């Protein structure tokens, strides 16, 4: 019985192949291709009229068209792009600061050790360390702010290239 199913499968494959080869052969014809070209042109013209009329009607009927909705969606996509660019810039700043921080810390550690040897007053040293830490944090913040404010990607992110036919946005 299982052989029957196997035979049926073989038959189905052969039949499918024959039908498809015939369809492809018949469709692969210069006249059909030309006719399809004309049909596509006519169809496009009909669609354009339909869209134009629906655009005209959308105003008196007070309803949005697909274009209106997509224009809003495009604005959101542009915003997302800007946020994405900002995120990239922030990550770069973070990495930059982290890279700058590591040698500083090691330098401070060594200076801290040498100070320890020279100065026996622990309290004084801690105070000085706290101050330099604070200053370093402030400097870091300023650097980041400065970087962001001067970064072209933050303030002057290129708006999405306007495409032909786009109404607003």
């Amino acid at each position, binding site marked *: 019985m*299982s052989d029957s199913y196997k035979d049926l499968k073989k038959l189905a494959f052969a039949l499918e192949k024959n039908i498809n080869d015939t369809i492809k052969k018949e469709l*692969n014809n210069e006249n059909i291709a030309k006719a399809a*070209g004309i049909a596509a042109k006519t169809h496009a013209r009909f*669609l354009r009229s339909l869209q134009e009329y629906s655009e005209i009607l959308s105003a008196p009927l007070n309803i949005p068209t697909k274009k209106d909705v997509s224009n809003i969606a495009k604005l959101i996509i542009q915003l997302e792009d800007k946020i994405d660019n900002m995120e990239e810039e922030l990550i770069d700043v973070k990495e930059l600061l982290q890279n700058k921080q590591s040698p500083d810390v090691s330098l401070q550690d060594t200076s801290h050790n040498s100070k320890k040897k020279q100065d026996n007053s622990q309290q004084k040293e801690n105070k000085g360390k706290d101050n330099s830490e604070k200053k370093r944090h402030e400097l870091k913040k300023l650097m980041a702010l400065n970087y962001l404010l001067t970064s072209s990607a933050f303030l002057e992110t290129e708006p999405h290239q306007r495409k032909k036919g786009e109404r607003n946005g």
Partner: protein
Amino acid sequence: MVKKNKNTLRSINWEKEKKRWEGMKHVFTEPAPEVGLTPRKAIWKKNKAALWYYEAPEKKYNVPLFLVYSLVNQPFILDLAPGMSMIEAFINEGFDVYLLDFGIPGYEDKDITIDDYVYDYIQKAVKKSLRHSGADEVTVIGYCLGGTLAAMYAAIAEEPIKNLILSVAPIDFSSPPVYDEWVKQLRHGTIEYEKILDMYGTIPARFIEAGMRIASYPIYFSHYASLLQRADDKEYVEKWRRFNLWTKNHIPFSGAALKQLITDLGKDNKLMNGNLMLRQKQANLSNITANLLVVSTTFDTLVPSQMSASVIDAVSSADKTFKMVDGGHATLAANGELPDFLAEWLPQRSEPI
């Protein structure tokens, strides 16, 4: 005659037949199966696209995999179900996997071009993957049209691509495998496709499915005969259902991108000829120096080997291989384990830890 019939009836395994028809009933009555079950995490999202990260349970290679899937179907073919998932096979082998899922375009995406896909999606996603993984290099794997996009990206990439794998990717359109008369008319300018694509904006999924069918199997029923033959095998039925779900899940296509593909590739074969421009940059295949593996399958009617094989001669890679594998268009994407040739080629080029 009666005796013969009695013998035939006796030879039937009724238990198996019962299972077979229950399996058939199951296919048509049960809800759609779940797909994409391998645990993953989105590390980046842009518009409808997402960059998914699949972490290897035990990482064995330093170079992660970056998968680019086609624009005509959904990428869940790469992760159908546990045991029938290419992504699962990759992570079980010890590769960290990043998958760029372009998502399902809406009408607002009608102006997305191939340039946008290459620069704003693929290149950005590769950068994100490199940053996320901390790796120095990446392996880019492109499936079907995703392979074409991956080749375009590799031709303009500034990121370190160690390996490039192009699986059933249509790149060389010099001799169309089917409908050469149509292509001739297209090249003569008789068929005006621009206006109709502009009018639709985003090309509906039904049209994309029809286009794919006409190019491969205008009439398609043999898969039901395959199912009937093995419907008593529960595992096969499950795989069949998932695969069938994928074949019916075409997605809309950005009109601007399709127009560009028809003009630049279908008509002018620019990628192969080396004169494709993507944002004022020449996407010449000779810029590709990564280790290259090009794979085609024997029964692929949609992208036969002549559309991929010649890439080998166009690139500058010192290490390049063309592999012909038994199977159809989606065989490699729907595999549950690493095919032998890939298990041999990929690990030695992925910096084992």
